[in-house]
């Protein structure tokens, strides 16, 4: 490390903040183009889908336990369970599956 850590921190915080702030602050009201509005409507679903697969299978100590967590979350969310229930259920599934000898290495 040779630069000043505080300047590094401020530089990256500023860049990240401006990216997040500018569109949200300056786009006021409804966008006229229906295509653009439709695109923005799909953005959350597309980003969440793309962020989940395949990254979820690398999120734990073993793809097997991750798959168990993924399937548990799919099942619980299909049943319209709350955010907290789905997240906790997925974590518990990972924990239990990793107790099976040979699934994960610690």
């Amino acid at each position, binding site marked *: 490390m040779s630069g000043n850590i505080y300047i*590094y921190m401020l530089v990256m915080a500023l*860049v990240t903040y401006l990216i997040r702030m500018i569109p949200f602050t300056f786009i006021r009201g*409804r966008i006229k183009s229906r295509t653009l509005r439709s695109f923005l409507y799909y953005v959350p679903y*597309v980003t969440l889908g793309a962020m989940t697969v395949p990254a979820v299978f690398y999120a734990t100590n073993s793809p097997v336990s991750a798959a168990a967590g993924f399937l548990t979350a799919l099942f619980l969310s299909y049943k319209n369970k709350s955010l907290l229930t789905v997240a906790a259920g997925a974590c518990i599934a990972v924990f239990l599956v990793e107790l099976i000898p040979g699934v994960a290495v610690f």
Partner: protein
Amino acid sequence: MKSASRFQIWKKGARHGIPVALGYFAVSFAFGIQAAGIGISTVQAALLSLLNLTSAGQLASLDIIAAGGSYLTLALQQFVVNIRYMLMSASLSQNVEPSLSTGKRMTIAYGLSDEVFALSALYPKPLDPLYTYGIISVAVPGWTVGTLLGAAMGQILPARIVSALGLAIYGMFLAIIIPDAKKSRTVMAAVLAAMAGSIALRYCPGLNLIPSNYRLIVVTLAVGFVMALIAPVPEEEEKEETA
């Protein structure tokens, strides 16, 4: 509006922030360990997390900081890694009252991580800033304290627990998208296409040459615009409140 119901809205956000905070804790704990590894102090690592609130950006920054790279290099790297937030920020601008004040917009913008955006974007329109403040007030401590503990005592939390917490954020993502995908075939198509695109960009020879930082934005632009062209959102559906 009565103060009790305003508190209820904040509380709902705070409750939805719990899985976010748990997931953040696992990820930021790992970040704290890595930050300490390149000689960043515990307090500095926590401050960095508090100021940035971005997993991919912060992890990527460690390479440049460790190598003593220039501030400009770091700024450009952060721009590339975090440019997806521009799309999310623009998307969320369609969900708030046009009259929402600049101050409130600038406050919400601080907390617009992937997860805070996702929850806020699917809150019934118009988005109440208090809901997002509620999420932020639970998620940011999770992110910051996770970093602090990871940097201070990386090896203390059992590896089994860290591993299990790794699924929290993805579980939450599914809890957000699956109920809407069940109700709408076009949303289901968008989700499946996004997953397929994401897999293709990661593994297909040729496509996997696209740097990982660009994958999300490539998938979002491609799938988002294709869906917008073949299945434009009907006016009624846009106004419908998805609870």
